């Protein structure tokens, strides 16, 4: 059952088998697996409990509810916006339901003894079955996706339909703001109800403050419940919660998990916690077409271009192209300029087809605490990644012209408005900081798995090398960027880590 700040008004102590911090893909899958195996499970979630009737499809209403820092979190140099969700269900509340498996060649390339595609593959299979993952039929493609498909076909580029975890989707186009139509087969719809049915409890509005360790084991989690700031502009006074457990799982995501571990002073002599952060960064641009595209309607992303994406070792094809998805405030923020020129571009919004290029990044950074609970994300793009983003922009522009665009707008600080396909070939494109909006929606890798405690934080089962009963089950475990959305893989990681914990009991 779920408790919120409304009923957690007095200090409380809990004693359970497993305490899980975070209720997103990894945390909810772990809760589901362990509760169904008969373990007493408690999940602590800093965000609030929302149901579909709370999702009002308004950017101003939902960003403060569903995203850390109302969606305004940025890297230290402010060059990259990092969107990171919270709420009971985590990022699965606001993701666009894309289901891509961690590529087998990538997983095998990590060379982690005891963890490879043969071990991980079956978990991915089970997650896909549990979430009802299926290919999005071509007759459900909105106009924006059809244009991408058309452009790819004209150029002979590889790609095709994406897979998703939806059922009963009405094509509202508001996936990123929570589904008011309850069509996401996500943590709130599948794994958390299953966990609760098996006896798990969830404490919403409850932030994990620190883990108390004795050097070998975690003894307890100290947490605090507060009325959330989004309710009326002010956070409530904290109520102390103490949780003892036989095992602890951190599943707050690649930003929050390292912050919790750092606040807890877990043994980390090599200073690895919070390092090797990957962001899977992306840039976007838009084609302007003669007739309406209305890109905000329908399933936002149902087609992908994989022409420039390869996971073969050493490949420099690292660009994944999919349609962009932005409602008007988001679109306005990304379009360059301001004043009359910007207003003129916004009047073209219904005729705009946005595309996004995300890269399988080699750049890596770090995350450390800032203030009480803030995050200092230090991440600077390497030159090679900047080139990949530039390749992504150029290829998106080619695709849009091949699909019939009259104009392509590249939203650099000084905008580049390209009127002819031939101009794309000679465009000078350089993705420098603060010259174009760069966004990350998939932070990964900051508490990574590996073979040795000298180079990694976790062993091949997701257990923290230096503590007997601490585990991590979120996107921070990946030794590299996945190069694809981590949703399915992270549910699988949660299940995998849970199975190992259950075996140790």
């Amino acid at each position, binding site marked *: 059952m779920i408790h919120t700040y409304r009923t957690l008004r007095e200090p409380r102590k809990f004693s359970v088998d497993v305490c899980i911090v975070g209720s997103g893909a990894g945390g909810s899958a772990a809760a589901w697996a362990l509760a169904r195996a008969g373990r007493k499970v408690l999940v602590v979630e800093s965000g609030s409990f929302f149901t579909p*009737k709370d999702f009002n499809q308004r950017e101003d209403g939902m960003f403060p509810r569903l995203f850390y820092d109302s969606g305004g979190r940025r890297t230290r140099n402010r060059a990259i916006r990092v969107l990171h969700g919270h709420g009971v269900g985590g990022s699965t509340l606001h993701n666009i339901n894309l289901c891509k498996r961690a590529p087998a060649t990538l997983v095998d390339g990590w060379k982690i003894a005891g963890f490879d595609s043969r071990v991980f593959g079956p978990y991915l299979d089970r997650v896909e079955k549990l979430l009802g993952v299926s290919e999005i039929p071509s007759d459900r493609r909105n106009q924006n996706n059809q244009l991408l498909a058309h452009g790819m076909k004209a150029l002979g580029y590889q790609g095709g339909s994406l897979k998703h975890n939806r059922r009963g989707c009405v094509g509202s186009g508001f996936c990123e703001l929570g589904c008011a139509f309850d069509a996401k087969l996500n943590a709130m719809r599948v794994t958390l109800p299953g966990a609760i049915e098996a006896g798990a409890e969830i404490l919403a509005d409850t932030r994990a403050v620190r883990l108390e360790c004795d050097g070998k084991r975690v003894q307890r989690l100290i947490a605090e419940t507060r009325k959330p700031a989004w309710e009326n502009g002010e956070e409530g006074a904290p109520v102390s919660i103490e949780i003892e457990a036989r095992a602890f799982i951190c599943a707050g995501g690649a930003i929050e998990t390292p912050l919790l571990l750092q606040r807890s002073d877990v043994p980390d002599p090599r200073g690895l916690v919070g390092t090797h952060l990957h962001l899977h960064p992306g840039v976007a641009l838009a084609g302007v077409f003669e007739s309406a595209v209305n890109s905000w309607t329908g399933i936002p992303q149902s087609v992908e271009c994989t022409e420039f994406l390869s996971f073969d070792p050493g490949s420099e094809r690292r660009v994944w192209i999919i349609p962009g998805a932005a409602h008007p405030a988001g679109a306005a923020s990304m379009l360059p300029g301001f004043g009359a020129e910007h207003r003129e571009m916004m009047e073209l919004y219904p005729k705009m087809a946005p595309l996004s290029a995300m890269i399988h990044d080699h750049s890596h950074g770090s995350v450390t605490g800032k203030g009480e609970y803030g995050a200092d994300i230090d991440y600077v793009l390497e030159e090679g990644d900047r080139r990949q983003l530039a390749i992504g922009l150029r290829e998106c522009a080619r695709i849009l012209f091949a699909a019939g665009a009259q104009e392509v707008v590249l939203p650099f600080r000084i905008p580049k408005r390209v009127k002819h396909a031939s101009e794309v070939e000679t465009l000078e494109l350089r993705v420098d900081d603060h010259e174009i909006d760069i966004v990350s929606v998939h932070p990964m890798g900051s508490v990574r798995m590996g073979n040795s405690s000298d180079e990694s934080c976790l062993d091949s089962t997701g257990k923290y090398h230096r503590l007997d009963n601490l585990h991590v089950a979120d996107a921070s475990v990946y030794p590299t960027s996945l190069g694809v959305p981590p949703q399915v893989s992270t549910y699988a990681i949660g299940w995998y880590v849970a199975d190992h914990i259950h075996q140790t009991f």
Partner: protein
Amino acid sequence: MTNVDLRRRSFLRWSALSGVGLMLGWRFILPAGGGKFERLRTLSQSHARLLAAVYATVTGLSDTQEMQRAVAFMDRFIGRISSRDRLELKAGLTLLEHSPLFFNGFFPRFTKLDSSERTLVLEGWRDGANWRRPLFGALKDLSYLARYTDPASWSSIGYTGPLVPIERQAGARDLEYFAMLSAEERGMR
């Protein structure tokens, strides 16, 4: 050089410095330009006027009622961000207000400039050194968030807005979610 010359030079130097100091001090003491905003919870009147001036420049619009709505929105939104970010934003706003003197050679504060001068100032923040660009980006984002989450703006850009969920499968699924709450929680709702 005689002692009289030195004393005169010193007097002139200090008079000039005092004059500049008085002008600058007066500049800081004077209130910001712009109207009055009601029922603010997070912003001071000066910051509200400054945000209104930024909003007008960024959107190119200056309707008074719309401005009031936009500032009210920004006041609520800023109230929900972290206190650290709020402090940084307010410091940035104060800097912006007085920046025209240092970066553009305009003596009046930002809120007292005309629209073409304000545009020049914001362009300077947009194109300036890397430490200046993020503030411009934040103010632009905030202005457009206020503008385009206002349903009154949607017809101007052909946006159809939320798909009203009248056909939701309410009832059974809502009850299932409700049942996930503890008994005490259910009793309170």
